[in-house]
């Protein structure tokens, strides 16, 4: 019923108007009509908000598979380098793929030291079985642990996802003491490197491979 129909009906029935037009409405309780209007307006507001969230997700840039910033499909677990074999360089993904005793790891190929001045890439020294930075000379072990040199921390790692079926079975995790490589449950499990997620290496003081054990601090001791 429109306002005017309502009024006319009241006039027809000779019902006195509840209040004088234009006076004092703000001091009275919310009427049903007003409440309903707020419900409509609220529904519209919720819809608009929902559209806004959807638009945000729609607009958010995505990275295609196998380009840096997106996920790299390495293949089945059998396609990983053998444990103990040389790390594999992935130039597009900007990482070194290593299969360590503790599981597969993808090290960002940028030396943690040179991040401040520019992206310098470290290399694999097959003779000494370690990573060397050609600029600052920092050395890292196969597991990515800091050995010596000016870099502030161990190597950064990208998150590796192990997918069985359509589910992520395990992925690289950062715990307070160490970075855990994902468990590979079966040879068919698919391996993905997510280059949008990077885990920073631990400070060099915490490195288990640190030279000169006097400097070495056992992780957890400080907090304890």
């Amino acid at each position, binding site marked *: 019923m*429109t*306002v*005017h*129909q*309502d*009024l*006319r009906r009241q006039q027809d029935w000779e019902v006195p108007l509840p*209040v004088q*037009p*234009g006076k004092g*409405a*703000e001091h*009275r309780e*919310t*009427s049903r*009509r*007003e409440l309903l*209007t*707020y419900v*409509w*307006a609220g*529904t*519209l507001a919720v*819809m608009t908000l929902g559209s806004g*969230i*959807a*638009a*945000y*997700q*729609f*607009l*958010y840039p*995505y990275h*295609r598979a196998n380009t840096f910033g997106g996920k790299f499909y390495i293949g089945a677990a059998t396609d990983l380098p053998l444990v103990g074999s040389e790390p594999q360089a992935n130039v597009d993904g900007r990482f070194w793929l290593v299969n360590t005793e503790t599981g597969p790891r993808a090290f960002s190929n940028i030396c943690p030291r040179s991040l401040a001045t520019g992206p310098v890439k470290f290399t694999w020294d097959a003779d000494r079985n370690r990573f060397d930075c050609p600029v600052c000379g920092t050395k890292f072990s196969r597991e990515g642990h800091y050995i010596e040199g000016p870099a502030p921390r161990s190597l950064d790692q990208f998150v590796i996802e192990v997918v069985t079926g359509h589910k992520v079975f395990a992925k690289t995790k950062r715990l307070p003491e160490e970075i855990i490589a994902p468990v590979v449950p079966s040879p068919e499990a698919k391996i993905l490197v997510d280059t949008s997620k990077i885990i920073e290496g631990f400070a060099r003081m915490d490195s288990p491979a640190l030279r000169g054990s006097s400097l070495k601090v056992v992780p957890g001791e400080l907090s304890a």
Partner: protein
Amino acid sequence: MGLQDNIREKGVLGAVAAQADDVFTRLTAGIDVGEFRRMLQGEPPGRPNPRLKPHSEGFLLHIKPTYYHESVTRFTHTFRLGLLSTYLFIVETITGILLMIWYAPSPERAYTDMILLLTNIPFGQFLRDMHRLGAEAMVAIVTLHMVRCYLTGSYKPPRQFTWFTGVLLLVMTLFLSFSGYLLPWDQLAFWAVTIGTSMAEAVPPAVVGETVNLLARGAPDIGANGLLRFYLLHVLFLPLLLILFFFVHYYKVVHFGISLPADEEEVGEDTANRVPADKRVYYLPDVLVDETSFMTVINTLLILLTVFFFQAPLEHIANPQSTPLHTVAPWYFYWLQGMLKIADKFIAGVLMPGVLLVLLMAIPYLDYNPSRRGKDRKVAIVAGIVAGAVMIILSWMGTPEYAVQGAPAVEIVQDVMPEEGSGLSREIGYKHLPLGIWRTDEEYDVHDHEFNELLHEFNDVVDFYRRADPDFNAPIGILTISQDQPSLKRLNWEITWFDAQGEAGNYEKTFWLHEDSIYWEQYGWKHLFLGYVSDGWKSLSGALVGE
């Protein structure tokens, strides 16, 4: 009054409240908080009516009438079809602009962009489906709007020109919808537009037709230039033109008022603009609340339809070397395709549509009957119904049902697994297609309900053609499903039969179906809402905690 004076007089809180009220009044172009609440509570306005101010001072409402006649606010008088068309145009504009973000109009990229949109972008498929559904709904609603105005005689004086601009808007809607057809650069797009533009070629003399075609396609054949031209037509030229004519149309609607129900005024009179004070329904607040609540319901409906019941088709990438079986125009041009099947290209493709268009525009100038009442307009209404029936019959003739039937075996396979589009086989999906050999002359005890349905359909369609075609005797359909590669099934359809002379015939067709193919089956609300919402929440909450 200055702020300092205000504070001195009313205190800080009072001054802030007064300032807030002032801002509110400016935003609403003249309605303060008290008046706003009185309005929502259903109280009459004071005199002079302060609720007219937003119409005279604000930009957004200056085109809206300040009040309507009570009779035209009844839903069953207009069915709000004009408002609905406008709403759909706005939906198309918003979804269209969003879709442009992930789309580049070049043959090298367009189709890949579509695939990425459907597979990689949150709400990509939803937006595309909604844009497509909105486009088709807009054609339908605009047509219904026209039918309503025809049946109520609303085109009669003084509204002749309103009708004329309305017909122009209908034509623009059709062209807008059709120009968007090419953009996905799939087989559906390519061939529909090839046929559409080649109709222009029939314009005599030949040199004119060819020139028109060259201008539309930007080359002898549709390619990169044609795609770009259709894109620009679709996103820029036609919308701008439509907006211009929309305002002309709407200005006329407001100027003359919406025509009253014919029984409420004398024949030959038009009293839409002389509304007695007791029949006035003011735009603020009644009509506004009515219209927005109606839009909210329609919006919800559109979202539900898009999510649950509609999927915009995407066929294989455009291939100029191969015309798929049963290529059809969009449904709103079926009537044109139907005429083209029975008549010459010039007559059916240019002359008849042209004459039809001119007739449609000229209706108000040709119809000299002054009465808008149904009982005085028997000829016009019967003529309208006959015209509608002819359109429906022509449209049916435009479908592959009419005169495009191939050999029975070809049609059988086309029915269960068409060359383009989904068909039942693809709809039930990869996981409902068990490996093995399935023959129509044997009974199987299959527990998979969906696959059972496919076998039944296969049986039925083979049986249908056995009865319909004397050259198609003792037919057997054999479906062989094998695993060609991991995640890839091979569907081999084989039909054997004997013709009237007893000679054996054989037809085979093979398709492959991938596990991740996106057809109806893979596209449910669960995927859309739970999947995207949880992903979105993760990324949003991740961003908030700085991950």
